[in-house]
């Protein structure tokens, strides 16, 4: 992106709760029309950051601008122009789908015909037509998320803030949810989303990895895959993957094998090292010594998860 003004700018955001620093000098820019992902494990500061960006939490220091509005000084100015899906499901469980939508629509200043139109559109988008009078608590997780998204876009916001929108939702629903997001982006909405699902990170235009309040890596998924870590990934399918990991990690600790990291991926093992291709034989030998068949070994493209774990272990 070039000389366009960034939709969201955060500068050195810090939030401390007593002794604990939840967000430690976080700075990034989100460009118009992109999906920006904030990726990190639980407790890494994602929710705290998003809340500061929305003006719901006062930073200990730092600055936030959304749509060129200084959020710290004028939080209410962005209210009608941004949409928010908070982390915990925050629609009213005891109200019906329609009652929820109507409430939020009116809250955002819609009325009469405009309100009806947007509600119809939201229902259509969420796939809840015909179920307007169902009580929200009767919907399953996936449908609830779609409803919450629908409620968040009723007022056609320019920016969408989503905090772990697909937590606890099945993969199929998750994919469908992201389809909806793409549609919105195609319509010109800028999306800021936090997640701890690696596969979702792949769907973002740009990412920032956050761990313990600090951004440890950022860039597009491709950039991160290629430059995010040292070394390449060797995938092994050993006969006993759990033990294999233990053995190889021990070898790394002893210094016998120059490995960056060894990770368990189900029944597979990923070994990351610089020039890992040349280490294949040494690795196979190490495993053989403990009576583990190394099985199939191949160098593969690093996934974001590999990158992330590598970054985290640093």
């Amino acid at each position, binding site marked *: 992106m070039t000389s366009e003004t960034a939709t969201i700018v955060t500068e050195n955001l810090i939030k401390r709760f007593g002794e604990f620093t939840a967000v430690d000098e976080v700075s990034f820019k989100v460009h118009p029309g992109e999906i920006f992902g904030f990726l990190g494990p639980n407790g890494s500061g994602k929710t705290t950051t998003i809340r500061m960006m929305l003006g719901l939490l*006062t930073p200990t220091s730092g600055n936030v601008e959304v749509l060129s509005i200084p959020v710290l000084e004028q939080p209410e100015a962005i209210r009608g122009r941004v949409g928010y899906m908070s982390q915990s499901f925050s629609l009213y469980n005891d109200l019906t789908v329609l009652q929820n939508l109507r409430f939020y629509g009116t809250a955002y200043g819609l009325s009469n015909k405009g309100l009806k139109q947007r509600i119809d559109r939201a229902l259509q988008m969420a796939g809840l037509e015909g179920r307007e009078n169902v*009580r929200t608590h009767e919907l399953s997780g996936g449908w609830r998320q779609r409803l919450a998204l629908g409620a968040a876009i009723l007022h056609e916001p320019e920016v969408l803030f989503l905090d772990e929108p697909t937590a606890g939702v099945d993969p199929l629903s998750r994919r469908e949810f992201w389809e909806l997001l793409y549609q919105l982006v195609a319509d010109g909405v800028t999306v800021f989303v936090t997640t701890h699902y690696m596969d979702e990170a792949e769907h973002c235009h740009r990412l920032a990895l956050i761990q313990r309040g600090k951004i440890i890596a950022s860039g597009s998924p491709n950039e991160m895959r290629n430059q995010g870590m040292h070394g390449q990934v060797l995938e092994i399918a050993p006969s006993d993957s759990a033990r294999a990991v233990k053995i190889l990690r021990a070898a790394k600790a002893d210094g016998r094998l120059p490995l960056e990291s060894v990770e368990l991926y189900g029944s597979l093992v990923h070994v990351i090292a610089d020039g890992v291709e040349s280490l294949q034989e040494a690795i196979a030998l190490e495993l053989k010594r403990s009576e583990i068949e190394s099985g199939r070994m191949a160098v593969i493209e690093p996934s974001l998860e590999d990158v992330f774990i590598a970054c985290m272990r640093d």
Partner: protein
Amino acid sequence: MSIRRVLAVVRKEIQHILRDRSTFVLVLLAPTALMLLMAYALTVDIQHVPIAVLDYDRSPTSRDFVQQIMAGDDLDLYAQVSSMEEIETLLMRGEIKVALILAPDFARDISSLRGMPLQIIIDGTEPQSGAFAVDHVGWRAEEFLNQVLSSQMGAFGGSQGILQPIDLRVRAWYNPSLKPRVDMIPGLISMVLGFPALSVALTLAHEREHGTLEQLMATPIGRAELLLGKMIPYVLVGLVNVIIIPFLAMLMFRIPFNGSFIVFFLLSAAFLFAILGMGLIIGVFMKTQPAALALSFLLIFFPGFFMTGIFFPIASMPEVMRLEALALPGTHYAIITRGVFLTGVGLDVLWPYGVMLVGLGVIFLAIAGLFFRKRLG
């Protein structure tokens, strides 16, 4: 301030209340139900007090006397006993609350004006029954003595009430028989109408507990709009009860309603405004529902019970408490209910209290608004 947004909140709150019938009925009718329960519990006219009589004299005069005393429903003759031990046992067992002992020379002492040869023993663990019995027996005994005296001293010519040189003619305005129930019930009404304040406090804490408050904060809905929107449905709930309760009071307890209903309605709305303002303040500060409940009890209901002059007259309170009582909406409203039900006064007398209530309401709302931030931290 957008009325539309306020109405959106009002509508949502009403939808919450209506979500299922049990909640609706409970919330809507809680004040009325409470009033009925409390009215029965707290305002019973004492009667049928069980009493045992130990008559050492056993003369026609003493038997006559006992008969006169027992006439009517006030006392119930449980047993005529022949020893103090029996009285002791009965009192211990709680089978009697009062015992009457006539001295062996009852008849003689009565006619020779040597005082009242009568002893009353009351169960001190129930002073109300005891005091009642003492009054009753004392009065009847005086009557009896008067009769004896007047038949003896016919010379004084039809002198009823020889024993009382000063004749007290008592008239109790607004409540001729001075039944506690009559004036308590307006007081109770003022107490139970404070009930929606609890619901208001709870609903704010509820949103906090369930995380929906965060979502609300991200919308353009302003603080004042949110607070007002939460308050209004409960004003309505209160007003429904304002309409129902007087009817029930008149029907079931025969409480008079001497004032104007419109005045009552208006002033009740002012009261609801004030007391719900208090509820909002609690809701703004407390993060969980149990905490909101606990604080409501401490700040709204306890003082409502003690300090508003319903059960304990304000005149008898120390200066400090009297001042504090002024800050309680219940104090002013109790005066209003008493005025409308019993005294039959109108706005010309009650307007200052209405003004106080509105003023308090504005102050409370302002405090709530001041401390309610659209911020999580």
